[in-house]
């Protein structure tokens, strides 16, 4: 087995015992990138030179006997909407094609302090708006299980790079499913943490009240390792929750005897592919055999979640993306006549169609005369959806659903039908609306060999419960299967 194929926790032990060096491991990952990247197109920017340098420094520190974190020396890919000081951060947009942040996101400071080796910046849907990574200004990323298909999105690069072993683990961001959905399509594990548990400082905002950074990996333990590093209160983010965060990896436990699992009937109805539905039910049955107690539940407002999500996220996006006006940084149209024309041309030429669609939608729902009918109502629904979840969590510990209604679709298949594209988020958006944590773990492969994901949703700040449940299931299912590339 090549080094690049191994899981982070195994590599961590090998590094600790000095069986391998980080430089060796990092070179192995970059060799892998060189051999498969032209098929996958996961990266927008490679950071090879710096990565090798960091790896060597970590090796030196280790030889000197320094106390290092579990993540020290592990190659990690970063979604391109997380600010990396001195390293181009494009959000896969023409608007920020040459933007180099002068500061690090809080998670990047944490990753760097933990000794993570940054392989590069990963492709995504422009400004994280999309479900297939086809909305990248630069290129679509391909699903390593079938390169004719999409890897999901918006963190398509984060999921595909991990699945293709072009990174050991990665960071993505999840506003409506953007970590879990590509994790499901690419057969990897993705955790969307509780809103407020990971600092958003330096994450280029899409929808501030929904965005959350989280880890992707080839196994639950790797994801837990990264989450242990990035979770924590941050004074730079007012919405960051002040509390103690455990070492999730150290506390990982596969005992699910007595775990109460809820199956919400609304997540298994119309639009859910029968194969996916059956796979999720089978997975839950396996967990039941290990002692879990399964119960059917109802979350009646689920039907309204998607429209609430698109109203709230687009409203916030229309404001968050207004700063890209060509005045101070980023793209500016070449020819213009006066200030307003400069704004119009810059934004017309600098943003892609999907981004413009959401900005228009968001601008509309916030407009005077429409605010009450759309935004205010969506916020009311948000409260109701959270209330329904909260009351269910009195009776169950986790809620199990499909992550996505289907397995990965073909590149170009849904690009002309935004509504069909939006519908792929149906099982994931409620989690963001309610600010809850959720994890996607691979649970089956269809007849084409494409992975499907099991989503486990927990109450706020119950990441440990989710990780334990996912870990238990992974122990049964065998976990990640490496795609042929």
């Amino acid at each position, binding site marked *: 087995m090549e080094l690049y194929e191994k899981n982070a926790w195994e590599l961590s032990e090998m590094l600790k015992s000095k069986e391998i060096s980080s430089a060796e491991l990092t070179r192995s990952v970059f060799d892998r990138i060189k051999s498969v990247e032209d098929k996958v197109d996961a990266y927008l920017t490679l950071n090879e030179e710096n990565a090798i340098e960091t790896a060597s420094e970590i090796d030196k520190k280790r030889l000197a006997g320094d106390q290092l974190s579990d993540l020290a020396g592990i190659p990690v890919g970063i979604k391109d909407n997380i600010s990396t000081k001195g390293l181009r951060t494009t959000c896969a947009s023409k608007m920020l094609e040459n933007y180099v942040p002068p500061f690090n996101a809080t998670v990047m400071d944490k990753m760097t302090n933990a000794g993570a080796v940054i392989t590069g910046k990963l492709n995504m849907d422009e400004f994280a708006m999309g479900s297939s990574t086809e909305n990248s200004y630069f290129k679509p990323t391909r699903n390593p299980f079938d390169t004719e298909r999409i890897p999901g999105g918006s963190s398509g690069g984060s999921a595909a790079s991990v699945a293709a072993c072009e990174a050991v683990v990665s960071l993505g961001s999840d506003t409506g499913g953007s970590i879990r959905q590509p994790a499901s399509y690419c057969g990897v594990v993705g955790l969307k943490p509780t809103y407020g548990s990971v600092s958003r400082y330096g994450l*280029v905002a899409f929808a501030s009240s929904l965005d959350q950074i989280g880890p992707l990996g080839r196994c639950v333990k790797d994801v837990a390792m990264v989450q242990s590093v990035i979770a924590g209160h941050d004074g730079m983010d007012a*919405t960051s929750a002040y509390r103690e965060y455990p070492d999730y990896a150290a506390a990982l436990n596969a005992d699910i005897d007595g775990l109460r699992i809820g199956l919400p009937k609304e997540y298994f109805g119309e639009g859910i592919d029968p194969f996916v539905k059956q796979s999720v039910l089978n997975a839950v049955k396996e967990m039941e055999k290990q002692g879990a107690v399964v119960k059917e539940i109802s979350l009646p407002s689920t039907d309204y979640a998607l429209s609430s999500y698109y109203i709230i996220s687009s409203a916030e996006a229309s404001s968050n993306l207004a700063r890209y*006006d060509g005045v101070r940084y980023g793209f500016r149209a070449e020819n213009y006549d006066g*200030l307003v024309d400069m704004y119009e041309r810059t934004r017309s030429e600098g943003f892609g169609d999907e981004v413009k669609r959401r900005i228009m939608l968001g601008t509309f729902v916030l407009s005077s005369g429409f605010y009450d009918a759309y935004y205010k109502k969506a916020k009311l629904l948000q409260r109701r959806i959270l209330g329904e979840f909260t009351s269910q969590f009195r009776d169950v510990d986790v809620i199990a659903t499909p992550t996505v209604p289907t397995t990965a679709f073909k590149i170009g298949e849904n690009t002309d039908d935004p509504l069909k594209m939006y519908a792929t988020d149906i099982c994931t958006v409620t989690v963001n609306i309610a600010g809850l944590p959720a994890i996607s773990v691979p649970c089956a492969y269809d007849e084409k060999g494409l992975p499907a994901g099991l989503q486990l949703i927990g109450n706020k700040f119950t990441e440990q419960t989710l990780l334990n449940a996912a870990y238990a299931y992974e122990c049964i299912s065998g976990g990640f299967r490496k795609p042929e590339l």
Partner: protein
Amino acid sequence: MVKGYEVVIGLEVHAELNTDSKIYCSCKNQFGLEVNSQVCPICMGMPGTLPTLNKKVVDYAIRMGHALNCSINRVCKQDRKNYFYPDLPKAYQISQAEVPLCENGYVDILVDGEERRIGVTRIHIEEDAGKLLHSDKFDGVSLVDLNRCGVPLIEIVSEPDMRSSKEAHVYLETLKSILQYLGICDCKMQEGSIRCDVNVSVHKPGEPMGTRSEMKNVNSFSAAVRGIDYEVERQISVLEAGGTIVQETRRWDDVKGISTSMRSKEDAQDYRYFPEPDLLTIVVEQERVDELKATIPELPNIKILRYVKEFGLNIKDATFIAESVELAGFFDACMAKGRFGAKCYTTWILGELVKFMNETGKTLADTKLTPENLTDLAEVIENKTISNAGGKKVFAVILNEDKPVAEIIKEQGLAQVSDDSVLEKIADEVLAANEKSVNDYKGGKTNALGYLVGQCMKASKGKANPGKMKEIILKKIGE
């Protein structure tokens, strides 16, 4: 009333708070530093940055709320006001829309001796924008200075309760002195630390309110007066000519002395306010609200009224003393001694003290003057231990030296002679030597008396009690 029209004025005042750092980042909040030197990724609105609220701003705004008798909304949100302009890096201003931190207050002002109560609709917190720099030197390009981005502001919105430009002026001056009393704003007009927008309408008495226009770019209180007077005249002449007033935003040009239309109601921007998702709801404990209330001193507008009503000061003197935190504090402490009337102290404060301060540029705190030594001084003048002239000499000393009044009198030999036998002896000598004047007086030339008293004073080397001296002379020559 102007030309048979009732004038209605409402004001929106923006005051920059003088906190150490900006409202949403730790950049220094200071005016006049090098262009774009007081900036960071947050106040420059770089992608991915987030605001965190400076709690001092909330405290300052609540104190102003208390000063203007507002109710404090202990739970309130911050909202985004969305619009594009190159001086606004995020393309939205964080402000407060629906629920302001403070609302439903009032301020009492004194206009031409008459007390007027002006309603305060609301006070909310928000961030300032940057500044555009236009110059021929820039080759047709405009530059932007972002130092002011994120400077904390409070916006104080009045009810349309003012009826003349003079009332508006007094209201503005009153707000300014209150801000200074609270020490929360530098109130430097030339630096733009207080700015105002003016809303004006006119109507015939008994008729409903007229359509208002809003005027921006009013950069001083006197400009506000000129702008209001211009706008009132303009609206009346439009109405008199049979026209109608349209709701619009106008721009005041103080150099030309005219306002011009910026945009009509139809073109009004839709700011698409919505709750700022990057910030938590502001929650202030009742205890904190009360604590802050306890820090509010008696405010100048209240002091003026009290000085006039209780102490009989004229408005000019009352205003002069009340508007200075220092002088008012000193005056109040003097009055608290209950020994002398206001006139006694205001004479010293507005006379010798202000003269000294103006001449030396010193403040009251720089002197050794205290309510105690000033009262001691008044005491020795009243009981005729020293003369008024001697009093001025003592005052000059107690400004600079921490020395008891009695000791100064002794050192300088300023004590007046009131002993009858001594004074009679002087009188006898002087009268004997000035027989002609005595006769003049007896012959009806009453001004000879002054000469005789003067001679006695001279003979006593100025120490004789002039009143008593005069009495004795009168007694002797009147016999």
